[in-house]
């Protein structure tokens, strides 16, 4: 077991946790204001595609050199904000069901990048390779980890944070106290868009060097799971993201390093000493989320007004 905790594994955990941290903290702002964020996945996809497309264009067409990934990162965040704005208008202004419209955004964002890249790059769903020098492997990691204390401070030490939490817990009372429920909720959802967009951008122009079809492959949902596992609190959410990043790192790096214990091997009708099937490691975050949500590991209580459109009394 000792050779499990190598520097390489820790580094890989940090890298894999970064998009989760960004998206989960984004989701935290949105959910703490009372808006469910099933659409994290779609926002990440929007960010990943836009960042890759813009970085590629800035580098190869406009020859902006070292500035291109930064422009790409900003573009990815803007794409996240744009998608979040659609989601916010539908959910807040038109009081649509948040889960249903979030699902719509996710389906839409599986289609739109492919649709656009088919026309822009004459490819089916991926953007061209970006040269290694024009990637941004460090900045998003630093931003992600810095965002944890910032989120904590904003949430618990600023008037905005107080309003955000009160709108998510008891919008009637917040409204009576003169807080604009919809304005706070709009800000929460838009911040989520920016952070999830950055998380997606990191996937395409940080970890990888191009956008591929559905490249988030469920990371938006893992981020959502981490948020629930972290009980909607910044520091716990960070720990949950690191844990889920670690399980992913293990499933990638430790292929063959951990052997299947004899008991499980018999149970699974496999030979003892086989590798642990990668599928079982992949399941861990989802199983943990179900267990924690059922209240087996302390209680995980969502914000009270989560998912309920606010109807102002006339």
């Amino acid at each position: 077991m000792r050779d499990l905790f190598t520097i390489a594994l820790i580094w890989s955990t940090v890298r894999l946790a970064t998009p989760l941290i960004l998206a989960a903290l984004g989701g935290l702002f949105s959910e703490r204001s009372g808006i469910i964020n099933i659409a994290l996945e779609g926002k990440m996809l929007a960010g990943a595609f836009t960042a890759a497309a813009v970085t590629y264009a800035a580098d190869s067409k406009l020859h902006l050199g070292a500035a291109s990934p930064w422009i790409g990162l900003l573009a990815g965040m803007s794409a996240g904000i744009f998608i979040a704005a659609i989601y916010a208008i539908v959910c807040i202004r038109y009081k649509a069901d948040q889960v249903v419209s979030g699902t719509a955004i996710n389906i839409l964002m599986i289609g739109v990048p492919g649709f656009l890249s088919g026309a822009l790059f004459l490819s089916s769903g991926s953007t061209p390779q970006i040269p290694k020098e024009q990637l941004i492997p460090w900045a998003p990691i630093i931003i992600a980890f810095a965002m944890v204390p910032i989120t904590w401070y904003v949430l618990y030490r600023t008037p905005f944070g107080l309003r955000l939490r009160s709108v998510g817990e008891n919008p009637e009372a917040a409204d009576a106290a003169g807080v604009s429920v919809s304005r706070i909720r709009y800000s929460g959802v838009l911040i989520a868009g920016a952070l999830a967009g950055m998380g997606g951008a990191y996937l395409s122009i940080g970890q990888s060097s191009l956008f591929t079809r559905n490249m988030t492959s469920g990371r938006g949902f893992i981020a959502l799971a981490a948020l629930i596992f972290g009980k909607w609190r910044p520091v716990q959410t960070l720990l949950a993201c690191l844990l889920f990043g670690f399980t992913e790192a293990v499933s990638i790096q430790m292929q063959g390093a951990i052997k299947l214990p004899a008991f499980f091997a018999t149970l699974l009708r496999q030979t003892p000493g086989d590798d642990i099937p990668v599928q079982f490691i992949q399941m861990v975050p989802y199983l943990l989320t179900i267990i924690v949500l059922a209240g087996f590991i302390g209680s995980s209580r969502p914000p009270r007004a989560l998912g309920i459109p606010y109807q102002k009394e006339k």
Partner: protein
Amino acid sequence: MKLLRELMFPLIAVIAAFIVGGILILIIGDDPIVAYKLLIGSALSWPDGIGYTLFYATPLIFTGLAVLVAFRCGLLNIGAEGQLYVAAFATAWVGITFVHMSAWLLLPLCFLAAIIAGGAWGAIPGVLKARFGSHEVINTIMLNFIAVALVSYFTQYHYKTPGDPIMETTEIGGGAHIARMGKFLPGFPERIPLNLAFILALVCCVLVYLFLWRTKWGYELRATGSNPTAAEYGGISIRKQIIIAMTISGSLAGMVGINEVLGYRYRYYDGFSASYGFTGIAVALLGRNHPVGVLLSAILFGMLIRGGIFVDAFTNNVTKDLVDVLQGVVILFVAAEALFRGPFGRFGLLKRSKV
């Protein structure tokens, strides 16, 4: 008049989605009229167009009904995707394990396997909600990923032909095959995979209607969905209804496995579902959570899938991703119903109807 009103709104949502799609097609430099003509033309040609449209519609009818039943009980089942994977694998497992059994015994067993496995996988979030109050949306999402990993494990490690590079199981017994429509329809070629599961889907539409609107159990389920507090006062156990609704919902989603495994590929093929579970949400919403509506909108989405392939091949820039785009926009418009009620509502075309 009531029917007109019910039809009006979904129609507006579909037209609005096509307009948004058309604008996108224009932006990427193709002619939307040409693309849409191609889409509809290829989806309605005889026999291939209609055959494949109905074949693609079949799983969507099942998942649409699954979402509908849960919705009527006030639950959102985003887990149809996981339920159908587990069920498809279960039915294939029976077909592989009892490969030499005669059709009279094997076929009912395979049907049961799909229905029971789907129902059981759907019951899990139901029980979790009834017992612990944890939200079914999160649990169904998590169970989707667990289901996919689980069946992929069994396929890879236990039921694959050794050396096969494709992630698929060995073939099921011949007794478990169900007939394709070409056997019964003169002039309808048997290479089109439309099979008896489509008829089963139609039967399920009728059964779901009868169950929900003509039986006491259906009434209790709907009462729980429309007003849980009143239902509880009326002596209905909400917890029981939640579990029942999720189990039925899962069983319906599970029947996708019958179409896929017993009627089409005759084996379990890993990752076969083109998001049928998620499209089911669109189908149910667009169909106003009524079996007839589900049937109609499943056929519409079946047309889109079929036509999308042709648009992809025969236009310069438009890819089959257009289908996902249209689907997403339709759900968005249906969800934001109030968007339309403003300008149109004044004319009394769109009165609020309880979903």
